[in-house]
């Protein structure tokens, strides 16, 4: 068991944002968090990444998070925030290297090269990060985050907050395939917030759907991505097609409210 979350709640300014979450994550498992905006996904991830205080127990490899030394934890838990703004002239290589533990002087770090090649940023190596596109910057940050835990031994947890949001479709596939391969080959556990339901269906071993701070339901893509769940959580109508590849495809049919608003202008005036 890489990560065990018991009764986790997060209170911010007297408001309970996340309520009584229970989660078990095995080594090599990819679990994706779904849910509407404001459901508490990012708050849950921030609690697990040590940014926010929480109530309840979170244990990694059977040891409470608070019992880990921060520098040791950094080699076993890596976090990719939703947005990382870089305002200073750092090169791609410098940012990726920040995730790496200190190496002996002058010894080239082969993991940096490998990750940059795999994530298709090797050609940007000496470019300044502030000058890159959003998608390129996202891949740079992901390389930094992966390098942090890649060669550590023992349990490893990767927390990703919308790590593909700025990527074009082909790079989304590339990045998710890299993450999937690392999970399966290296036993890295992945907990990722995703908004693209089809990306989740394609790559997740398990989906957890959150709504209003609680866990609404969890399970495989076929169990979770159903008409009733999508309707209840997102208020969203969709056609769900079972693909021969073994995962469902969700085709949106528009939200009811938007249709109403566009079909009847007086509706918007009234509100």
């Amino acid at each position: 068991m890489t990560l065990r979350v018991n009764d986790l709640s997060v209170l911010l300014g007297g408001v309970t944002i996340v309520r009584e979450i229970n989660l078990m994550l095995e080594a090599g498992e990819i679990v994706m968090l779904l849910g509407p905006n404001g459901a508490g996904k990012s708050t849950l991830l921030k609690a697990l990444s040590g940014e926010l205080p929480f109530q309840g127990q979170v244990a990694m490899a059977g040891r409470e998070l608070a019992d880990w030394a921060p520098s040791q934890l950094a080699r076993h838990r890596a976090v990719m925030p939703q947005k990382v703004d870089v305002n200073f002239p750092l090169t791609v290589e410098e940012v990726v290297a920040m995730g790496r533990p200190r190496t002996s002087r002058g010894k080239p770090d082969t993991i940096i090269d490998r990750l940059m090649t795999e994530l298709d940023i090797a050609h940007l190596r000496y470019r300044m990060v502030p000058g890159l596109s959003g998608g390129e910057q996202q891949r740079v940050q992901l390389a930094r985050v992966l390098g942090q835990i890649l060669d550590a031994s023992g349990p490893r947890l990767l927390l990703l907050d919308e790590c593909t949001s700025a990527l074009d479709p082909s790079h989304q596939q590339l990045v998710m395939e890299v993450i999937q391969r690392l999970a399966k080959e290296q036993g890295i556990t992945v907990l990722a917030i995703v908004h693209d339901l089809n990306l989740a269906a394609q790559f997740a071993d398990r989906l957890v759907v959150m709504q209003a701070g609680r866990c609404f339901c969890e399970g495989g893509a076929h169990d979770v991505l159903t008409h009733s769940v999508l309707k209840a959580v997102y208020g969203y109508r969709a056609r769900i097609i079972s693909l021969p590849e073994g995962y469902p495809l969700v085709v949106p049919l528009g939200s009811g409210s938007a249709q109403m608003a566009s079909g009847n202008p007086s509706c918007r005036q009234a509100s």
Partner: protein
Amino acid sequence: MIRDAAGRFGHTPALIIVLCAAAAVALLSVASGAYPLAIPDILKVLGGREANDPVASLVLLEVRMPRFLLGFLVGAVLAVSGALLQGLFRNPLADPGLIGVSAGASLAAIMVIVLGSTWLGGWLAFAGEWALPVAAFFGGSATVFLAWRIANRDGQTQVATLLLSGIAINAIAGAATGLLTFYATDDELRSLTFWTMGSLGHAGWDELMIGAPFMILALIVSPFLARPLDAFLLGESVVGHLGYPANTVKKAAILVVGLGVGAAVAVSGLIGFVGLVVPHLVRLVLGASHRVVLPFSALIGGTLLVAADSLARIVVAPAELPIGLMMALIGGPFFLGLLMRRKVV
């Protein structure tokens, strides 16, 4: 070639150039002034031998050496403090003046100048000639402590609050300084004005003894903050993700800046631009990693201030210009030039 693949200067050639420049400026600084010294005499005295000119040894060891050392230390500390704050605030416009250190130190100094003959007579009698620098040092440290107390909530240091409280402290200190200026006599006004323009004119071994320990401590501690400060450039949350104690780093950086700048202002008055311009220049040429920015800022900041001080003594010899004015006169147009030539930030 001397430029690396990212189009930056190599560190080794840059270090050689900077060290040569520092050595040249050091010689210029100890040689020039109202009583010019010959280079062979300087080398003889430094080598422990008798100089041809008997006065040379006295001028060099009692006047020029402490002045050079103090100038170099002050420049180095101001530049490193600027670099630390810019990293901490993730803002290339941050400056030691920003969190109110300089304002607090100068208010205390001006209080000693203006109220020394009346309300603060006791302090002046007690501290003697050390009254002004020691007061400035405590003023600067007290300001940092106040800003720090305001910005600390539940064990977390709120960087934005620190910035805002700095603005408020600057305003309050500015108003109090204005009030004191209003009531100052002509003589007090004159020494007050000279002090706010910055000067190394009082530099002696005594001033060095007061300021150097804190400034050297600040310079020694700052390199240990380099790696976590690099992480700060990616955002405060990332510092924690990478396993660095973000709060400890913040507190250490603020303390280093408070002590260092407090001591620097105490011995030399207000000297602007070094903290802003030097780290910019280093980042432009050598990149933004603090492992490079901090040591090079120290070297270049020290060299620049000593060069400006030499120039301030040469242009209107035997009198001298206030070095704060000199720095602003050189630094301002230089910075504008950088801005016009390319994007600095």
